[in-house]
């Protein structure tokens, strides 16, 4: 079960950065890693992460094949916790040059998005298959041990 929870936490964090990137190259800022920082002292594949006396160090994971290209991450460990995960590479595919047809606009409606009650059964959102992310993160964490 621990692995499942951890997996879910990682997927959640992954969603912050990588969702839908099969279509484009997003600009990725230094991530906030609430989820992983809280679940980790980090246990990936049930191994406890033990970092030496160095208080801050960055480890680069292997480049892993994702559905639409390669994913590679680096992990920075500060005070025995993951302080950031950065994407060094991510899939960048599909053309983005698009003919825009605005003719149908009168049949559509518009509104500014607003936060709603979170009392729902299910949430629909974009995801991106994260196996490659997990593998690259795993290899970066292995180096940190």
């Amino acid at each position, binding site marked *: 079960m621990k692995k499942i929870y951890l997996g879910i936490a990682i997927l959640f964090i992954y969603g912050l950065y990588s969702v839908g990137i099969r279509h484009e190259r997003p600009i990725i800022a230094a991530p906030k890693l609430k989820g992983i920082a809280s679940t980790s002292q980090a246990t990936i594949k049930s191994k406890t992460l033990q970092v030496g006396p160095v208080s801050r160090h960055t480890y680069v994971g292997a480049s892993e094949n994702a*559905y639409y290209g390669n994913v590679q991450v680096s992990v920075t460990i500060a005070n025995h916790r993951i302080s950031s995960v950065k994407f060094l590479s991510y899939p960048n595919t599909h053309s983005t*040059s698009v003919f825009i047809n605005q003719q149908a606009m009168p049949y559509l409606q518009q509104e500014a998005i607003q936060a709603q009650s979170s009392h729902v059964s299910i949430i629909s959102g974009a995801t991106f298959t*994260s196996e490659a992310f997990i593998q690259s993160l795993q290899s970066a964490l292995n180096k940190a041990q």
Partner: protein
Amino acid sequence: MKQTRIIMGMPITIEIRDEDNPLVFETVFDYFRSVDARFSPFKSDSELSQINRGLPKEKWSDEMKEVMELCDQTREITGGYFDIYYEGNIDTSGLVKGWAIDKAAMMLKDLGYNIFFIEAGGDIQVEGDQWEVGIRNPFDVNEIVKVISISGKGVATSGAYIRGDHIYNPIRKSTPIGVSSITVVASDIFEADRFATAAYAMGSAGINFINALPEVEGYMIDGSGLATFTKGFANYVA
């Protein structure tokens, strides 16, 4: 009763409200595992990987033939925006998830279940009750920006949760603010997923494409947080 497994690198959740029978969940999860084994571009022994290494068409499984035909058909319907050929390889991922959820839902119905949902990585099929489905804020994954109430429908969202894309508008000679996410509601998740994938690739024009499809509705959020949606979508809003 609700169960979640991580398969195909994503969380897959099934909730069944008819009756509690733990065994049925594993049957459906096993189906997803078999789909992953066949269609995964990661696994070198998957049928898809074998095809990319030259496995001739005569040796394809019936499932593979079915998916390939659906991919060809979807490419035609979407004017080429749905395309499984990338850098010389075939990748059916843009359609297989929705197709598998749809099959899994049929499997549950055949087993006599009527009130359930199946969700795989944010793509959903709901049956029976009216289910409240939230649409995630593409700028804040902890937030929901729309709630719809639906039954017997599929919902899929395609998008980027980092920032908008860069779409060149050849008519206005400018770069408009791109699409952050597009959510599509259709009669089943197979339709919703394949059209969400294609509509997202179309950029801002994607919502017009959705609008033109009968009984397919959409909610598109652009890079500035402005949502554009079809009239039919408004009817689903809870």
